[in-house]
Every structure is written in C-alpha cells, then in structure tokens.
C-alpha cells in the first residue's frame, strides 16, 4: 500500500515544476505545456484523495479537469497561431504591445 502522502508530494513536485516552466520557458507553446503539467499534478491529487475516501468523485473531477484542459488547449493554441501570424515569433515577451 502506497501512502497517500507520497502521491500528494509527487503532485506538489509536479505542480511546482509546471509553474517553474511557465516562468523559465521563452516559448508560448512550452508555457502551455507547463500549464498542462500543473493540471496533471492536480488531477493526480484528486484521484489519490478520491481513492482514499473510497468514492469515484475524484475521478469525476479529473474528467472535468481534462475537459477544461482540452478546451484551454484548443483556444490557447488558436491564439498562439493568430499571434504567430502577426508577430512571427512565439516569445511571450514580444507580445507586450498591450501596455500603458
């Protein structure tokens, strides 16, 4: 039997990794990927908790998260494409025209 704590710590690490990615990467696509990592960390925590509590709600939530992730990916990538068309780059720091 694997203690719940292990799962949770794992998800914590993954989440932190994802956030780190959001800041480290200089590429919008990779940033989106990092966000996916974060979402997965959350999913893991959910399922682990659900398993412990002995009901399937955890998995249900996970499905919703996945669905939202799908939607987010679709829109996000569409945005990325649109941006790339206008800026010819994927560097988030290049999209700073919306200021002051």
């Amino acid at each position, binding site marked *: 039997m694997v203690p719940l704590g292990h799962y949770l710590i794992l998800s914590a690490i993954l989440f932190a990794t994802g956030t780190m990615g*959001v800041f480290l990467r200089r590429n919008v696509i990779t940033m989106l990927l990092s966000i996916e990592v974060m979402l997965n960390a959350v999913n893991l925590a959910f399922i682990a908790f659900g398993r412990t509590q002995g009901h399937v709600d955890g998995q249900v939530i996970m499905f919703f998260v996945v669905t939202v992730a799908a939607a987010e990916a679709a829109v996000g990538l569409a945005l990325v494409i649109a941006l790339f068309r206008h800026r010819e780059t994927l560097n988030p*720091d290049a999209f*700073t025209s*919306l*200021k*002051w």
Partner: protein
Amino acid sequence: MLLLIPLLPFLGFLINHAVGRRLSKTASGGVACLAMAGAFGMSVVSVWNLLQMPPADRGIVQQVAAWIESGALVVPFTLRLDPLASVMILVVSGIGFLIHVYSTAYMHEERDSEYARYFSYLNLFASFMLVLVLGANFPVMFVGWEGVGLCSYLLIGFWFTKKSASDAGKKAFIVNRVGDFGFLLGMFMVFAQFGSLDFQEVARQAGHLQPEVTFGAISIATLLLFVGATGKSAQIPLHVWLPDAMEGPTPVSALIHAATMVTAGVYMIGRNAVLFSAAPETLAIVAGVGVATALMAGTIGLVQNDIKRVLAYSTVSQLGLMFVAMGVGAYAAGIFHLYTHAFFKACLFLGSGAVIHALAGEQDIRKMGGLRKELPITYWTFLTASLAIAGFPFLSAFFSKDEILWKAFSGGHTVVWAVAAAASLLTAIYMFRLVFLTFHGKRTSAGPGEHAAGASLAVARDDHASVGGPHDSHAHGHASEGGHLHDAPPAMATALILLAIGSVVAGYVGIPAVIGGGNQIEHFLAPSFAAPGIEAGGARGASHAEAPAEGPVSHAEAVGEGGPAPSGVDAATEHRAELTLMAFSSGLAVAGIGIAWFFWRRSRALTDRIAASFAGVHRVLLNKYYVDEFYDAVIVSPIKGVSERFLWKVFDAGVIDGVVNGAGTVVNGWSGILRRLQTGSMRAYALSVFVGVVMILGYYVWR
C-alpha cells in the same frame, strides 16, 4: 375599475405618442376621442355605483400599488372616489370628451404628426387630471398636479415655432413652480402635523381639532397649500400666467385653462375642507384673495380687446368667486359653481374658437361684429353661455353664483359679499360687451367674408404670417372659399350645442331650498367636506367660518336642521333675506347686460370718450395693472442679474468647473503613475498572481 378611468386616456396618449405620426388624422383623433369616451363611460358607471351606497359613507377606494414606504411615511398609490371626486371626474371626462370631439375639427389644418402630438398631449392631460381628482392622498394628487402642469406647458407651447407661444408656456410653467413649491411645503407640514398624507386620515384628525384662533401650524400649512392653489388657479399674486396661456389652441384654453385644470386649486381646498375649516385665518385670506382677484380680473376684462383674453380674465374672476366660496366655508357652493362654470366657460371658449376659426385666426374683437347672421349656431350657443355666466335667472350660474353670494352674506362677510356682487356685475358687463362687439352691429373690419376688404384681409393675414400663427392655413382655406363665412363644422357644432344645453340645465341639480328645490348637490357633496366619523351634517357646521369657537360638537347639533340654514338663525328671516338677495343679483345680471348694451351697442362714441377722459385708468386696466412689469422689475431682473454675474461668471466658471477639472487632473496624474504596473508582459502578470498564491499558501502553512 377606478384605475381604468385615468388609464384609458393614458393608453390613448401612449398610442398617439408612439405610432401617432404614422396614423391618419381620423385614426389618431378617433383613438383619442374613444379613450375619452371610455373614461367618461367608466366614470358614469363608477359614479352610479357610488350613488347606490348610503349617503353617509359614500366612497370607493382602490389601492393600485404600494408606492412609497419609508418609516413613518407610507404612501400607497390609492385612488378614491367620493361625491366631490365624482362631480369632478364627470366634469373632466365629460367636457373633456366634448372638447376632444371639437378639436378633431378645430385642429384639422395641422399636419398629421402635429395632430397626433396634440391629441396625445390632450389625452395625457386628461389622465393626469383624473389622477389628480381621484388621488386619495397628497402625493398621488401631487402627481396629477405636476402632470397637468406639464401638459398645460406642452399645450400652451404647442405652436412652439411661435416665440410668444413658447414664452407663454415657460411662463405658465415657472409661475406654477412657485405654487407647486408652496403645495409641497404645505404637504410636508401636513405630514409633520398629522403623520399621515391620506386625505381621510388628515380630515379625521383635523375634525377633532379646535379651530385655531391664532395663527398656528395648521394655518401655515393651509396657507402654503393655498399658495399652491393660487398657482394652479391663477389667483393673485400668481394669476399672471393664465391670460398669456391663451397662446395655446383654443380647445386647450377651453379644457385646461377654463374647465378643468385651473379649478384644481379650488378642488384641492374642497378636498381638504375639514383641514381648512380648522384654520379660519387662512379661510379669511382665501376669501380676501378670491374677492380681490375677482374684482381685478373683472375690471381688466372690461377693456381687453382679444376675445380669448377677455374670456381668460372672466375665468380668473370666476375662479376668484369660487375661492370666495371656499373662503366663507361654502365649499359645496364653490364646487357647485366650479361645475356649472365648467360648462358655460368651456362653451364660451369653444364659441370663441369657432369665431376665430371662421375669421381665419382673427382674435381682435374690434375687428369683428355682425357675425350673428353668419355664424348662427356659434352665436346662439355663445349667447346662452353668456347669459348663463352673467347669472341670468334660472340659468346655471344663477344658482351657483347666488349660492356663493348668499353664503357670503349669511356668513356675515358683508364686505366680501359686496365686492363679489360688484364682480358679478362686472362679469355681466364685459361678457355682453364681448357678445355685442363680436356678433352684433356691422363688421368694422375685414373678415374673409368681405370681397371689398380683401386688402385689410391681406393685412390681417400678413400679421398672422409674421407671428407665424398656425391659422394662416385657415386664412388661405377661407380666402380660397371666398364668399361668406362658414359656421362651425358638425363636430364643433355638436360640442357647442351640448355645452350650451349643459350651461342651461347644469344648475338644476342645485336649486336652493327657498325656491322649493332641496339643494341636492349640496347634500350630495356634504360627506366629502365632513371629517369621516362625524356624520354628513357636520360638514355644514364645519363650513361655518364665522363660528370657529364652537367645535365639532355644535356642528353635530347643526345636523338637526339640515338644509342651508346655519345654526342659530331664524329660518323665516333667512328665507326672506335669501330671496331678496336672489332678486338683487338677478337684477345685477340684467343691469349688467343693460349697461353693456348701452355702452357698446347704443353709443360707442360715448364709450370711447369716457375711455379717453379716464385715459390713465384705461391704460392701467389695459396693461393689467402693470403686474407683469412689476414682477419683472422686482423678481425676474434681479434673479437674472445675480445668476449672470455671480452664479455663472463666478460660481459656475470658478468653483464648479474648477472642481471638475481638478478631479480630472488628479485622476490623470495618479493613473500616469499607476499605469506603470501595466507592463503588458504576460510573464510579469503571471508572476504577480503567483506571488499571491505563494504568500497565501505560506500564511496557511506557517499559521
């Protein structure tokens, strides 16, 4: 049920206002008339229901909605129909309907859109007037009060392209504001005194008050209310707007400025009869103002040359008489006169309208004359109405006016009585001056009828063109017809005839007891002037201003005698006195007619000579005692000066603009600093969010 009465005209207004400009004249006019007819029908039905009730507690109440509720102030939107209100709604909706019908013909030269606009305003006015009449508490009445004010403004300035018209509209509105202010303050004081704004409640409490001997809170409240009344009903000192209001279309003058709206003040006092009875001081003032107005207006009316203005001044003086009635506590008499007056004054105005219509917008009576043959219907109806207003025996005003005079006399206000009598004499005189100058003799100047005087017709037409008068169209129309004048078209004729009949028979609901007809209307109205709880007779007592010392107690015993006889006077002498007075006043009427005949039929020359010899007086009268000029000097120009030199140049430009611009600069500066946060780099934004997350989590971890 009750709600429907004001609602129907309002619907008419909505329809005509929304889609009127797309409707044909027939359609929009039809809608308006139908709405009024419906309102009239509903009023008749509800009055009928009212009559079925026992006299003591006649009253139909309908709470439409909860309106204002804050702490002690609870004002439901309630309509209440009682005898007083029932008289009013019948007058408003009935005469209103006739005038609508009349208007369909009178306004027919207007463009379709204008036509619809006119009728939408007229309907709106009717509905507001009915709300005013039916309102069961001060605020609801005030809604109607303001509403009719608005409509009168809109309708006076209906031909807004004409400067004089729009000015007159503004004048009426502003003068009314003064009155409304008084009304509001009075309302507040009433609330402060009685903790309620419902007429019933106020009357109930006031009924148990001892009438104030000295000038106290109630007197102030009632006085303020009276200021409001003077505003609406064009009494001194706020009478100045009514004559100018004649700039509006004639049917409007008939409906609003003769029959209904201007009587709102009288109605309001009647509505609060019990309250006023508790303040003899105020009543005295009311009587005084009323009589003064009556006299002044009568004198002015003698010399005016504009047919409508003469009628306007006669209205003012009649209103003065009504206030006299109120002042001497003869509320029933006042309302009675109001009701008869509505008929014949409306008839007179419509008649004058017919004349103007026929003469292509000519309004100067000096240019008229001899129209009797050419406009028979108009002539006869006009004559009847004039006789009625003059108080010719057994016509409507005969009863009502005599009632007032008698009440004044028997009330012991001999002075008031004397002046009022003089005023009624004047009434007879100027009315028949009008009749003679307009309809008898030979035309002294061009009407479109005379081929010879085409030139002067052109002149007449020109000056109308110059003022941009709406009646140019008439002029053209009739000039093209050439030949004889044409009498009122059917729609107008019907209205005239019906109103004429009304002005003959309307009085017969109030035949005084002495000539064997127990004054029904008085008994009918009595409950409305009585404090609820005290039975009907109490009103007669309460309406005795000369006996303030004796409270409701004595009123109660006054019930026993009933009838017009006040308490403590022998009935026989009463009757003799009353009959004498009646004879006297009818004598006055005849005399007035005679004088008018003598001066303006028999020997015009003499008249002019007199006028010349009393040039000063004549000028003063002609200029309406210079009241307008006085106001202008005392009130208007100082205000103008202050607002221009201080309010505008100093306060507005300096303080207000300064504040506004200052706010702008401050915000501008700060945002100049704060906008630095908007770096536009999404990573920075993410960072700010993330910092927050870490902090919050940290708080929970190390808590």
